[in-house]
């Protein structure tokens, strides 16, 4: 994990405590502190939010762009026909609700569902539930026609699975906004969340009940694959049960204990999943880089010339020609690409080098989007890169977004300005939130974490760990 931001903070603390006793004490406490951090906080709230918006947004734009071609790509009578898909999925057991029925109506419903679930997920509306819906949408379409996709689809496929396990709605989400408004309404009382909880999260409870009913129907109809261990049946019912458990722990439990426990579990799972997402991004770059080293074209410095001259990857032949006009330039880009890809995972140990390389990678992907005609692949890769962006930058980005929106809203008139102010993306991050829903408020999550692992709140909120303490 890029704990680099935290490193700099830790360095500062260390410099201020030079005596040996202090150091011993610190060394003694370190494992405990690491455990406290991993259980007490869902790290990287901005990073997980930016990849949520990034992947959901990429998938949404892709679906809208392909809307005119949806029949040909995923429809029951497309070239990869229902019959062909059925034979393949029967042999590999990939998950897709599109194989539940070969009707045109069902297909249109699923496509629309995929579009709306990505909108809701990007906005962070009941993030935990919509993350699962997003997953179902992505897998259903992609697994229906696996020969239609490319690397970009592959990234979104993997990340949609990992995102289900993260608390990616802590900031920049409707969940955060709802929690903030509720906290404002309820005032500063210690048990405000409890009194408030049942009443206001009606949408979450309804969502949970509806999804449970849908899942029950699908199960009874024998549509969901998989038995007890590891099958999709287990996964989906398991996720549903966890949400219910979370809700009932908040609603009925006498003490805070069950909720605190669940909060710790959610944090640990989130932190592990975020680590997996980062490691996955590193694996992508490492694989792409190390295999290139073995290629003669990457060795002789001409590799970049070739994709630029493939008919399928040269939407702007004149531009491609211009870019590959100089042999020295082509060689520099060729070597630079390999060096950057191979080096990337190792630069995570140094914040400054990492950030420089990250900016380079994002730029290269933006160029690839245009020059090789791979906009959605590039967008997905940029979203994956974004998980390594420093918190300070992301917060500034959030600030800009807020100001831009408010400026726009002012221009549009007073009414829309009111909407904008209460929308997501406020520079002031609210309390954490986003774990199993429904019926969870950010405030209680915050309290739970505070009580559960006293001491974490004293740590300086620098860089990656900048989960703000709730205001009270």
């Amino acid at each position: 994990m890029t704990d680099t931001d935290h490193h700099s903070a830790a360095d500062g603390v260390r410099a201020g405590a030079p005596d040996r006793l202090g150091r011993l004490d610190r060394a003694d406490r370190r494992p405990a502190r690491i455990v406290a951090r991993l259980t007490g906080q869902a790290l990287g709230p901005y990073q997980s939010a930016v990849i949520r918006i990034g992947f959901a947004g990429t998938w949404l734009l892709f679906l809208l762009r392909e809307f005119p071609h949806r029949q040909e790509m995923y429809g029951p009578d497309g070239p990869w026909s229902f019959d062909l898909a059925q034979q393949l999925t029967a042999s590999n057991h990939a998950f897709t609700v599109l194989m539940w029925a070969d009707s045109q109506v069902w297909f249109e419903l699923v496509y629309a569902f995929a579009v709306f679930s990505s909108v809701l997920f990007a906005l962070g509306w009941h993030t935990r539930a919509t993350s699962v819906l997003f997953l179902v949408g992505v897998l259903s379409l992609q697994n229906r026609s696996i020969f239609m996709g490319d690397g970009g689809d592959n990234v979104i496929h993997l990340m949609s699975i990992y995102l289900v396990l993260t608390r990616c709605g802590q900031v920049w989400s409707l969940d955060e906004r709802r929690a903030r408004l509720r906290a404002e309404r309820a005032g500063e009382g210690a048990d405000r969340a409890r009194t408030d909880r049942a009443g206001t999260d009606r949408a979450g409870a309804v969502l949970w009940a509806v999804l449970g009913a849908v899942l029950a129907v699908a199960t009874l109809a024998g549509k969901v694959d998989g038995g007890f261990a590891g099958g999709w049946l287990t996964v989906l019912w398991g996720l549903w049960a966890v949400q219910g458990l979370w809700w009932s722990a908040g609603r009925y439990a006498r003490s805070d204990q069950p909720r605190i426990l669940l909060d710790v579990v959610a944090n640990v799972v989130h932190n592990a999943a975020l680590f997996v997402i980062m490691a996955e991004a590193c694996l992508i770059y490492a694989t792409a880089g190390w295999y290139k080293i073995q290629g003669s074209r990457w060795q002789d410095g001409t590799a970049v010339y070739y994709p630029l001259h493939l008919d399928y990857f040269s939407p702007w032949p004149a531009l491609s020609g211009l870019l590959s006009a100089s042999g020295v330039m082509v060689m520099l880009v060729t070597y630079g690409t390999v060096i950057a890809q191979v080096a990337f995972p190792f630069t995570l140990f140094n914040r400054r080098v990492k950030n420089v390389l990250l900016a380079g990678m994002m730029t290269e992907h933006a160029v690839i989007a245009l020059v090789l005609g791979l906009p959605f692949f590039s967008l997905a890769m940029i979203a994956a890169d974004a998980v390594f962006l420093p918190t300070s930058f992301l917060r500034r980005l959030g600030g800009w977004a807020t100001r831009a929106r408010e400026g726009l809203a002012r221009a549009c008139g007073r009414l829309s300005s009111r909407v904008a102010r209460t929308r997501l993306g406020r520079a002031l991050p609210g309390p954490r939130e986003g774990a199993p829903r429904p019926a969870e408020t950010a405030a209680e999550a915050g309290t739970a974490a505070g009580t559960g692992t006293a001491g974490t709140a004293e740590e300086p909120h620098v860089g990656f760990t900048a989960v703000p303490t709730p205001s009270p």
Partner: protein
Amino acid sequence: MLALVALAACVHLGMVFLHVAPSNTVTKQHGRAIDEWIYPEFEQNWKLFAPNPLQQNIAVQVRAEVKATDGTVGTTQWYDLSAADGRAIDGNLLPSHTQQNELRRAWDFFVATHDTTNRPNGLRGDLSERYLRRIVVLRLDREGAGGPDAVVQQVQVRARTTNVPPPRWSEEQVSDKPVLRQLPWWPVAEKDRAAGTRPVDRTGTMASGR
């Protein structure tokens, strides 16, 4: 709990690592366990333009035997479907997967599942053949092959592979002669016709077509 989750994350990453790594001692011994963990949902391939980028333009072309409405049977010209894709991509900020991936990947799939004499290797080979056939029938229909209301009865596919000419600043020489791989004629059955490509007068043409 923490240890359990950490263990699961590490095992998963280990599996993914072994899946993307070159064949090695561990993957040779435990390939099956790795595959069972990875497939189908965690499958991935990040050899992007590696070890070497593709250095050939592969054009998939097709011609058809069509039956016109007056009953005459004729063979069409070769249609260069990849060139049509290329034209659709040219100057396009947002190329569609149907233009960039569909035919290109279908041909890759076909090549990967057939031997050099074009014999399929099992189920996937069979699927790839039917997929390719449905694509070309759909494309021929869009091209209006054989005139209005003509029915495609057979198709023949070939791939024309041309080396990308070496850069001007390089002294390398490669052949600029295209290499052809021609597949046998395939009869087109009713199930090979994708949406919208079925004969208008179904009963009449089908009866005479068979």
